Protein backbone atom coordinates (compact mmCIF):
# COMPACT_ATOMS: atom_id res chain seq x y z
CA UNK A 1 0.00 0.00 0.00
CA UNK A 2 1.42 3.41 -1.02
CA UNK A 3 1.56 6.23 1.51
CA UNK A 4 0.35 9.71 0.50
CA UNK A 5 3.99 10.81 0.33
CA UNK A 6 4.87 7.99 -2.05
CA UNK A 7 1.90 8.83 -4.26
CA UNK A 8 2.70 12.56 -4.40
CA UNK A 9 6.26 11.76 -5.45
CA UNK A 10 4.89 9.73 -8.38
CA UNK A 11 2.24 12.13 -9.65
CA UNK A 12 4.31 13.60 -12.49
CA UNK A 13 5.45 10.25 -13.94
CA UNK A 14 1.88 9.04 -13.40
CA UNK A 15 0.60 11.93 -15.51
CA UNK A 16 3.31 11.37 -18.12
CA UNK A 17 2.45 7.68 -18.29
CA UNK A 18 5.99 6.57 -17.54
CA UNK A 19 5.28 4.44 -14.45
CA UNK A 20 5.42 0.64 -14.68
CA UNK A 21 1.91 -0.80 -14.92
CA UNK A 22 2.00 -2.29 -11.40
CA UNK A 23 3.00 1.01 -9.80
CA UNK A 24 0.50 2.87 -11.93
CA UNK A 25 -2.34 0.67 -10.65
CA UNK A 26 -1.31 1.24 -7.04
CA UNK A 27 -1.26 5.01 -7.54
CA UNK A 28 -4.68 4.87 -9.24
CA UNK A 29 -6.09 2.87 -6.35
CA UNK A 30 -4.77 5.38 -3.83
CA UNK A 31 -6.15 8.35 -5.78
CA UNK A 32 -9.60 6.81 -5.81
CA UNK A 33 -9.84 6.68 -2.06
CA UNK A 34 -7.70 9.64 -0.91
CA UNK A 35 -9.31 13.05 -1.56
CA UNK A 36 -6.13 14.94 -0.61
CA UNK A 37 -3.95 13.15 -3.10
CA UNK A 38 -6.71 13.34 -5.67
CA UNK A 39 -6.82 17.13 -5.24
CA UNK A 40 -3.05 17.27 -5.67
CA UNK A 41 -3.39 15.11 -8.76
CA UNK A 42 -6.01 17.42 -10.30
CA UNK A 43 -3.76 20.39 -9.59
CA UNK A 44 -0.77 18.72 -11.21
CA UNK A 45 -2.86 17.79 -14.20
CA UNK A 46 -3.97 21.39 -14.63
CA UNK A 47 -0.38 22.51 -14.42
CA UNK A 48 0.64 19.95 -17.01
CA UNK A 49 -2.06 21.15 -19.43
CA UNK A 50 -1.00 24.72 -18.79
CA UNK A 51 2.63 23.93 -19.56
CA UNK A 52 1.74 21.88 -22.63
CA UNK A 53 -0.20 24.85 -23.86
CA UNK A 54 2.11 27.73 -22.90
CA UNK A 55 5.60 26.40 -23.48
CA UNK A 56 5.55 25.46 -27.19
CA UNK A 57 4.72 29.02 -28.36
CA UNK A 58 7.27 30.54 -25.97
CA UNK A 59 10.00 32.38 -27.87
CA UNK A 60 8.66 31.63 -31.35
CA UNK A 61 11.10 33.49 -33.62
CA UNK A 62 10.06 35.99 -36.27
CA UNK A 63 11.35 35.61 -39.84
CA UNK A 64 13.57 38.74 -39.59
CA UNK A 65 15.15 37.20 -36.49
CA UNK A 66 15.85 33.94 -38.30
CA UNK A 67 17.25 35.83 -41.28
CA UNK A 68 19.49 37.88 -38.97
CA UNK A 69 20.85 34.75 -37.28
CA UNK A 70 21.40 33.15 -40.70
CA UNK A 71 23.38 36.19 -41.87
CA UNK A 72 25.52 35.91 -38.76
CA UNK A 73 26.04 32.18 -39.23
CA UNK A 74 27.14 32.67 -42.83
CA UNK A 75 29.48 35.53 -42.01
CA UNK A 76 31.17 33.49 -39.28
CA UNK A 77 31.39 30.28 -41.29
CA UNK A 78 32.75 32.25 -44.23
CA UNK A 79 35.36 33.94 -42.05
CA UNK A 80 36.47 30.58 -40.70
CA UNK A 81 36.63 29.13 -44.22
CA UNK A 82 38.90 32.04 -45.20
CA UNK A 83 41.19 30.93 -42.37
CA UNK A 84 41.14 27.27 -43.39
CA UNK A 85 44.48 25.68 -44.39
CA UNK A 86 43.42 25.32 -48.05
CA UNK A 87 42.55 29.00 -48.37
CA UNK A 88 45.68 30.02 -46.49
CA UNK A 89 47.73 27.94 -48.94
CA UNK A 90 46.05 29.76 -51.83
CA UNK A 91 46.86 33.11 -50.24
CA UNK A 92 50.42 31.95 -49.65
CA UNK A 93 50.68 31.04 -53.30
CA UNK A 94 49.08 34.30 -54.34
CA UNK A 95 51.58 36.32 -52.33
CA UNK A 96 54.38 34.32 -53.96
CA UNK A 97 52.74 34.97 -57.32
CA UNK A 98 52.74 38.69 -56.64
CA UNK A 99 56.37 38.61 -55.52
CA UNK A 100 57.32 36.68 -58.67
CA UNK A 101 55.38 39.18 -60.75
CA UNK A 102 57.29 42.05 -59.15
CA UNK A 103 60.57 40.30 -59.85
CA UNK A 104 59.63 39.68 -63.49
CA UNK A 105 58.61 43.33 -63.85
CA UNK A 106 61.93 44.46 -62.41
CA UNK A 107 63.86 42.16 -64.76
CA UNK A 108 61.79 43.20 -67.76
CA UNK A 109 61.98 46.92 -67.01
CA UNK A 110 65.24 47.58 -68.93
CA UNK A 111 64.05 45.41 -71.85
CA UNK A 112 60.68 47.17 -72.06
CA UNK A 113 62.15 50.64 -71.89
CA UNK A 114 64.66 49.68 -74.60
CA UNK A 115 61.83 48.16 -76.64
CA UNK A 116 59.74 51.32 -76.19
CA UNK A 117 62.55 53.53 -77.33
CA UNK A 118 63.10 51.23 -80.30
CA UNK A 119 59.47 51.04 -81.45
CA UNK A 120 56.86 53.00 -79.45
CA UNK A 121 54.10 52.05 -81.91
CA UNK A 122 54.05 48.33 -80.82
CA UNK A 123 52.21 48.06 -77.44
CA UNK A 124 52.56 44.97 -75.23
CA UNK A 125 49.31 43.03 -75.60
CA UNK A 126 50.13 39.88 -73.68
CA UNK A 127 49.93 39.74 -69.93
CA UNK A 128 52.06 37.38 -67.87
CA UNK A 129 50.06 34.52 -66.39
CA UNK A 130 50.97 35.79 -62.95
CA UNK A 131 49.01 39.00 -63.60
CA UNK A 132 45.85 37.09 -64.47
CA UNK A 133 46.23 35.03 -61.30
CA UNK A 134 46.90 38.06 -59.16
CA UNK A 135 43.81 39.93 -60.39
CA UNK A 136 41.65 36.87 -59.61
CA UNK A 137 42.42 37.47 -55.94
CA UNK A 138 40.46 37.84 -53.71
CA UNK A 139 38.22 34.97 -54.80
CA UNK A 140 34.47 35.25 -55.49
CA UNK A 141 32.22 35.42 -52.42
CA UNK A 142 31.23 31.94 -51.29
CA UNK A 143 27.97 30.51 -52.50
CA UNK A 144 26.99 30.05 -48.85
CA UNK A 145 27.04 33.82 -48.52
CA UNK A 146 25.05 34.37 -51.69
CA UNK A 147 22.22 32.06 -50.65
CA UNK A 148 21.11 34.65 -48.06
CA UNK A 149 19.39 36.37 -51.00
CA UNK A 150 17.28 33.32 -51.68
CA UNK A 151 16.62 32.94 -47.95
CA UNK A 152 15.47 36.56 -47.78
CA UNK A 153 13.27 36.30 -50.84
CA UNK A 154 11.79 33.07 -49.57
CA UNK A 155 10.79 34.62 -46.29
CA UNK A 156 10.10 38.08 -47.72
CA UNK A 157 12.66 39.55 -45.36
CA UNK A 158 13.56 43.12 -46.25
CA UNK A 159 16.40 43.92 -43.91
CA UNK A 160 18.63 46.83 -44.79
CA UNK A 161 22.12 46.03 -45.96
CA UNK A 162 25.06 48.09 -47.08
CA UNK A 163 25.52 48.36 -50.88
CA UNK A 164 28.60 46.13 -50.59
CA UNK A 165 26.62 43.53 -48.70
CA UNK A 166 23.80 43.79 -51.23
CA UNK A 167 26.30 43.26 -54.05
CA UNK A 168 27.73 40.24 -52.29
CA UNK A 169 24.25 38.87 -51.70
CA UNK A 170 23.14 39.22 -55.32
CA UNK A 171 23.25 35.84 -57.02
CA UNK A 172 25.58 35.50 -59.95
CA UNK A 173 23.72 35.79 -63.33
CA UNK A 174 24.55 32.16 -64.15
CA UNK A 175 22.46 31.06 -61.16
CA UNK A 176 19.33 32.91 -62.25
CA UNK A 177 16.60 30.76 -63.75
Amino acid at each position, binding site marked *: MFTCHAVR*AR*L*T*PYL*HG*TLPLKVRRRVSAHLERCPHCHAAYV*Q*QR*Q*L*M*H*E*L*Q*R*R*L*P*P*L*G*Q*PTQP*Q*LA*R*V*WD*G*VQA*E*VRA*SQDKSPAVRMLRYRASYGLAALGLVALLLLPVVTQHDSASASAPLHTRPAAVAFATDWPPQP*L*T*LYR*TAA*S*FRSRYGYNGTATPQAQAALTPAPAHRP
Partner: protein
Amino acid sequence: MDSTPMQTGVTIAQAIAGDQTAYQQLYEQYAAGLYRLCYGLLLNRQDAEDVAQEAFVYAFKNLQRYDSSRAAFKTWLYTIAVSRCRNLYRRHRHPLLDLAQIFHLAAPCAETPEAAMAQRSAQDAVTRALGTLSPRLREALVLRYGHGLTYREIADMMGCPQKTAESRVRLAHERLRDLLQPALLEELYSVEFS
Protein backbone atom coordinates in the same frame (compact mmCIF):
# COMPACT_ATOMS: atom_id res chain seq x y z
CA MET B 1 8.38 19.82 -42.30
CA ASP B 2 10.24 17.10 -40.41
CA SER B 3 12.55 15.11 -42.60
CA THR B 4 13.52 11.52 -41.90
CA PRO B 5 16.92 10.74 -40.35
CA MET B 6 17.88 9.30 -43.75
CA GLN B 7 17.06 12.57 -45.55
CA THR B 8 18.89 14.57 -42.88
CA GLY B 9 21.86 12.24 -43.29
CA VAL B 10 21.91 12.91 -47.03
CA THR B 11 21.72 16.67 -46.48
CA ILE B 12 24.59 16.50 -43.99
CA ALA B 13 26.69 14.48 -46.42
CA GLN B 14 25.98 17.05 -49.12
CA ALA B 15 27.00 19.88 -46.81
CA ILE B 16 30.24 18.12 -45.89
CA ALA B 17 30.91 17.61 -49.60
CA GLY B 18 30.69 21.38 -50.02
CA ASP B 19 27.10 21.85 -51.17
CA GLN B 20 26.29 25.23 -49.68
CA THR B 21 22.52 24.95 -50.18
CA ALA B 22 22.59 21.89 -47.91
CA TYR B 23 23.71 24.15 -45.05
CA GLN B 24 20.76 26.37 -45.75
CA GLN B 25 18.41 23.38 -45.73
CA LEU B 26 19.72 22.31 -42.34
CA TYR B 27 19.32 25.82 -41.03
CA GLU B 28 15.76 26.16 -42.31
CA GLN B 29 14.81 22.85 -40.79
CA TYR B 30 16.21 23.39 -37.31
CA ALA B 31 16.56 27.15 -36.76
CA ALA B 32 13.09 27.90 -35.35
CA GLY B 33 13.21 25.01 -32.87
CA LEU B 34 16.74 25.82 -31.81
CA TYR B 35 15.93 29.47 -31.30
CA ARG B 36 12.87 28.54 -29.24
CA LEU B 37 15.00 26.28 -27.10
CA CYS B 38 17.56 29.03 -26.49
CA TYR B 39 14.84 31.53 -25.66
CA GLY B 40 13.16 29.10 -23.26
CA LEU B 41 16.42 28.65 -21.37
CA LEU B 42 17.68 32.24 -21.46
CA LEU B 43 14.37 34.15 -21.54
CA ASN B 44 16.07 36.94 -23.47
CA ARG B 45 15.77 37.53 -27.21
CA GLN B 46 19.22 38.93 -27.85
CA ASP B 47 20.95 36.17 -25.89
CA ALA B 48 18.82 33.57 -27.67
CA GLU B 49 19.83 34.93 -31.08
CA ASP B 50 23.50 34.97 -30.12
CA VAL B 51 23.48 31.43 -28.78
CA ALA B 52 21.46 30.07 -31.71
CA GLN B 53 24.02 31.60 -34.05
CA GLU B 54 26.95 30.21 -32.05
CA ALA B 55 25.39 26.75 -32.01
CA PHE B 56 24.87 26.68 -35.77
CA VAL B 57 28.35 28.00 -36.47
CA TYR B 58 29.87 25.33 -34.24
CA ALA B 59 27.72 22.62 -35.79
CA PHE B 60 28.50 23.66 -39.36
CA LYS B 61 32.23 23.90 -38.68
CA ASN B 62 32.21 20.47 -37.02
CA LEU B 63 29.71 18.63 -39.23
CA GLN B 64 32.21 15.90 -40.03
CA ARG B 65 32.39 15.11 -36.31
CA TYR B 66 28.66 14.38 -36.11
CA ASP B 67 28.05 10.65 -35.70
CA SER B 68 24.53 9.63 -36.75
CA SER B 69 24.92 6.24 -35.08
CA ARG B 70 25.16 7.93 -31.69
CA ALA B 71 22.42 10.57 -31.82
CA ALA B 72 19.89 12.22 -34.07
CA PHE B 73 21.14 15.44 -35.65
CA LYS B 74 18.56 17.42 -33.67
CA THR B 75 19.85 15.89 -30.41
CA TRP B 76 23.42 16.78 -31.35
CA LEU B 77 22.47 20.34 -32.31
CA TYR B 78 20.35 20.90 -29.20
CA THR B 79 23.13 19.49 -26.99
CA ILE B 80 25.48 22.11 -28.42
CA ALA B 81 22.90 24.84 -27.74
CA VAL B 82 22.23 23.68 -24.17
CA SER B 83 25.94 23.73 -23.44
CA ARG B 84 26.27 27.26 -24.90
CA CYS B 85 23.30 28.45 -22.84
CA ARG B 86 24.98 27.07 -19.73
CA ASN B 87 28.12 29.05 -20.50
CA LEU B 88 25.98 32.14 -20.79
CA TYR B 89 24.02 31.83 -17.57
CA ARG B 90 27.22 31.03 -15.74
CA ARG B 91 28.58 34.36 -17.01
CA HIS B 92 25.61 36.51 -16.04
CA ARG B 93 23.08 34.95 -13.79
CA HIS B 94 19.53 35.99 -14.41
CA PRO B 95 18.05 37.68 -11.36
CA LEU B 96 15.25 35.84 -9.63
CA LEU B 97 11.92 37.26 -10.64
CA ASP B 98 9.64 38.92 -8.20
CA LEU B 99 6.85 36.55 -7.24
CA ALA B 100 4.46 39.38 -6.44
CA GLN B 101 4.90 40.55 -10.01
CA ILE B 102 4.12 37.08 -11.29
CA PHE B 103 0.86 36.97 -9.42
CA HIS B 104 -0.03 40.53 -10.29
CA LEU B 105 0.47 39.78 -13.98
CA ALA B 106 -1.25 36.46 -13.78
CA ALA B 107 -4.42 37.48 -11.99
CA PRO B 108 -7.06 37.97 -14.68
CA CYS B 109 -8.40 41.45 -14.08
CA ALA B 110 -12.13 42.05 -13.73
CA GLU B 111 -11.83 45.48 -15.37
CA THR B 112 -10.29 44.04 -18.52
CA PRO B 113 -12.62 41.37 -19.81
CA GLU B 114 -10.79 40.92 -23.12
CA ALA B 115 -9.81 37.32 -23.46
CA ALA B 116 -6.67 38.30 -25.33
CA MET B 117 -5.46 40.28 -22.36
CA ALA B 118 -6.11 37.38 -20.02
CA GLN B 119 -4.32 35.03 -22.37
CA ARG B 120 -1.34 37.33 -22.43
CA SER B 121 -1.29 37.56 -18.67
CA ALA B 122 -1.45 33.81 -18.36
CA GLN B 123 1.43 33.42 -20.81
CA ASP B 124 3.43 36.03 -18.92
CA ALA B 125 2.76 34.27 -15.64
CA VAL B 126 4.07 30.96 -16.92
CA THR B 127 7.11 32.65 -18.50
CA ARG B 128 7.91 34.44 -15.28
CA ALA B 129 7.40 31.35 -13.19
CA LEU B 130 9.81 29.59 -15.54
CA GLY B 131 12.35 32.33 -14.86
CA THR B 132 12.31 31.56 -11.16
CA LEU B 133 13.40 27.96 -11.68
CA SER B 134 17.01 26.91 -11.46
CA PRO B 135 18.61 26.48 -14.91
CA ARG B 136 18.61 22.67 -14.71
CA LEU B 137 14.93 22.47 -13.83
CA ARG B 138 14.08 25.00 -16.52
CA GLU B 139 16.03 23.00 -19.10
CA ALA B 140 14.16 19.83 -18.21
CA LEU B 141 10.78 21.53 -18.34
CA VAL B 142 11.41 23.39 -21.60
CA LEU B 143 12.71 20.27 -23.34
CA ARG B 144 9.81 18.19 -22.07
CA TYR B 145 6.88 20.54 -22.62
CA GLY B 146 8.23 23.11 -25.06
CA HIS B 147 9.67 20.50 -27.41
CA GLY B 148 7.80 17.34 -26.46
CA LEU B 149 10.98 15.30 -26.15
CA THR B 150 11.28 11.92 -24.50
CA TYR B 151 13.18 11.52 -21.23
CA ARG B 152 15.88 9.65 -23.15
CA GLU B 153 16.38 12.61 -25.50
CA ILE B 154 16.26 15.09 -22.61
CA ALA B 155 18.89 13.07 -20.74
CA ASP B 156 21.16 13.05 -23.80
CA MET B 157 20.83 16.78 -24.29
CA MET B 158 21.35 17.59 -20.62
CA GLY B 159 24.18 15.10 -20.25
CA CYS B 160 22.62 13.23 -17.34
CA PRO B 161 21.04 9.81 -16.65
CA GLN B 162 17.44 9.35 -17.73
CA LYS B 163 16.32 9.02 -14.09
CA THR B 164 17.84 12.42 -13.33
CA ALA B 165 16.00 13.96 -16.27
CA GLU B 166 12.76 12.49 -14.95
CA SER B 167 13.31 13.75 -11.43
CA ARG B 168 14.21 17.21 -12.73
CA VAL B 169 10.91 17.42 -14.59
CA ARG B 170 9.12 16.24 -11.45
CA LEU B 171 10.92 18.79 -9.25
CA ALA B 172 10.21 21.57 -11.75
CA HIS B 173 6.56 20.55 -11.71
CA GLU B 174 6.41 20.70 -7.93
CA ARG B 175 8.23 24.01 -7.81
CA LEU B 176 5.83 25.54 -10.32
CA ARG B 177 2.80 24.11 -8.59
CA ASP B 178 3.94 25.85 -5.40
CA LEU B 179 4.56 29.07 -7.31
CA LEU B 180 1.34 29.12 -9.25
CA GLN B 181 -1.00 28.76 -6.31
CA PRO B 182 -4.08 26.61 -6.72
CA ALA B 183 -6.44 29.57 -7.08
CA LEU B 184 -4.26 31.10 -9.75
CA LEU B 185 -3.89 27.80 -11.53
CA GLU B 186 -7.65 27.49 -11.50
CA GLU B 187 -7.95 30.93 -13.10
CA LEU B 188 -5.25 30.22 -15.66
CA TYR B 189 -7.00 27.03 -16.52
CA SER B 190 -10.39 28.68 -16.85
CA VAL B 191 -8.96 31.10 -19.47
CA GLU B 192 -8.55 28.10 -21.72
CA PHE B 193 -12.28 27.46 -21.77
CA SER B 194 -13.59 31.00 -21.59
